[in-house]
């Protein structure tokens, strides 16, 4: 069996040894204990003996080279080699210097730049949560060869990778959240009937919705800013209202050219109860139902409205619809 001959460590703190000379030629027979080569360390030159009998089959370092301790520099074979090899050592300088630079107490960071076989991305819980909340796709970092596991600071690199990237669908794409509610429509019908019979005012239910939605939105955000509500229907019509909660129910001025804070989708009178066919640029409130019940569903991302605020909003909206007079007066 061929035996590898390595550059020996002759001193306590020795990293490399200079090969002074080979005393056997490639192909030559050697006996165990024959002097095989000479090594110079910082202190002295020493002769190194063959560890076993055989033939010097291959020599992979030349006289004059500094060879790292432990590197194979020759092979002794049991049978006479046909083509004995002699070549210079391939020196791995990087390995030697990086070891020196690395403080001894620091463990080597196991960098996993490739995704694991099952496609799982390694990321800290906080990094994963923030990526989800901000609609960032960690897979992009993997594609960019960013070393895993990812931490919060890696999200900066991720943002620069995809500044305006629309969020991908799927488990690690943009988080689509939902809150749904079911209320009675009796109070709303009663209110509309009263408006008509007592005041002779006829308004669509959607006018009340727009006003209540704006008021509840304002309350959920604790803000006095403008609230823009877009009213859409299954028929494809779309109207924008600025601050409908501050206008009269019968005269709500339309606006345009602004981005809505909230889209109110009127699905009543159809069997459809909610509609979410792709990412929206704002939170969407579906109002659906036939007869005595109204179902409300809010689709949103955490950037559009936080979970807490969304819950406050939908609760406030439902409360207003179930008791319109109290909230209008």
């Amino acid at each position, binding site marked *: 069996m061929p035996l590898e001959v390595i550059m020996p460590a002759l001193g306590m703190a020795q990293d490399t040894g200079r090969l002074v000379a080979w005393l056997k030629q490639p192909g030559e027979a050697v006996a165990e204990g024959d002097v095989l080569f000479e090594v110079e360390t910082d202190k002295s030159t020493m002769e190194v003996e063959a560890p076993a009998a055989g033939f010097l089959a291959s020599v992979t370092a030349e006289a004059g080279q500094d060879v790292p301790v432990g590197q194979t520099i020759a092979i002794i074979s049991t049978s006479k080699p046909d083509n004995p090899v002699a070549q210079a050592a391939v020196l791995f300088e990087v390995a030697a210097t990086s070891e020196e630079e690395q403080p001894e107490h620091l463990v080597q*960071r196991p960098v996993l730049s490739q995704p694991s076989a099952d496609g799982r991305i390694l990321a*800290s819980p*906080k*990094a994963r949560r923030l990526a989800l909340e901000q609609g960032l796709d960690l897979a992009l970092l993997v594609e960019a060869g960013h070393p895993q596991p990812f931490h919060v600071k890696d999200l900066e690199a991720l943002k620069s990778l995809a500044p305006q990237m629309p969020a991908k669908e799927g488990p690690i794409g943009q988080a689509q959240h939902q809150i749904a509610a079911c209320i009675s429509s009796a109070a709303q019908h009663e209110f509309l009937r009263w408006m008509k019979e007592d005041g002779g005012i006829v308004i669509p239910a959607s006018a009340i919705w727009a006003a209540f939605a704006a008021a509840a939105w304002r309350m959920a955000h604790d803000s006095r800013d403008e609230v823009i509500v877009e009213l859409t229907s299954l028929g494809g019509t779309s109207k924008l209202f600025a601050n409908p909660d501050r206008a009269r129910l019968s005269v709500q001025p339309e606006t345009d050219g602004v981005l809505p804070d909230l889209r109110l989708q009127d699905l009543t009178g159809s069997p459809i109860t909610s509609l979410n066919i792709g990412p929206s640029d704002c939170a969407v409130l579906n109002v659906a139902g036939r007869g005595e019940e109204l179902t409300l569903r809010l689709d949103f991302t955490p950037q559009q409205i936080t979970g807490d605020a969304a819950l406050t909003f939908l609760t406030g909206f439902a409360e207003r619809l179930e008791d319109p007079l109290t909230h209008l007066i």
Partner: protein
Amino acid sequence: MREITLSQAVNEALAEEMRRDETVFIIGEDVAEAGTPFKVLSGLVEEFGTSRVVDTPISEPGFMGVAVGAALTGTRPVVDLMFGDFMYLIMDQLCNQAAKAYYMSGGKLNVPLVLRTNLGATRRSAAQHSQSLHALVAHIPGLKVALPSSAFEAKGLMKTAVRDNNPVVIIEDKLMYNDKAPVPEEEFLIPFGQANIKREGQDITLIATSSMVQVCEVAADILAQDGISAEVIDPRTIVPLDEDTLLASARKTSRVIVVDEGHQSYGITGEIASRINEKAFYHLDAPVLRMGAMDVPVPFSPALEDLTVPTPEGVARNAHLLVAGEMIHAA
């Protein structure tokens, strides 16, 4: 503010409470004339006499049992257990009797008893006098466990312990008896279950108990030189534990090391780390790290003994790895 040693602080606290309440008495080995081997109780027998500072034979189960009975019949014993290592001897009296009397009597019986003892290695006292066994008692429902980290805490927590109507184990660091700290001359108490933020920081939280508070404060100094801002929190009592303060800090810094002098396995560090994992998981940017004493009998050899407990350099090193995101698997 005047500075006194931890030893003086304990002495003052007990003297004040004994003056305030004549049912308070001290019982243990070498507590009277000797004032304990650490001289913590010196002078008390002169003021309060041998009926309230009671020397006992060398029989820990005996005097612990006497104290539990005395507590059940209306006094407030402060039991002095010379070394924390002797807790093994009094386990039944403490954990089966004192800790459970209130529950098993349907609330009719109280055991207002304080067990005073100590912890801490690196005093060259060998394996049977160097253990930090607070995890043993913290595991038992019905016992409160206080771990003072300076003379200030030693006094404030001791006074609260004496006034508690149920058993309290208060464990001092025996290496800290001569350490001075500012302690107010006027009376004060430290409530149980209220952690102390020793130092505010942004990048990493070091939760440290007892002897390890000093270690972590030095570690925070080291880290500050490297531009890492470490928050140091001392829970002061591990039962009850001020979870809110620990969790708020974990959520703020996203990185936590829990440092305690008890053996690491199945210990205080594991318990606190687990609670943070359970309750602040999505705020963590790195695994919560435990740093306890090595899982070996404490060696007598000074060179070896010093290796078994967490050091400021070790804490700082791990903090560096966590902050750099390079702590993949803890050693």
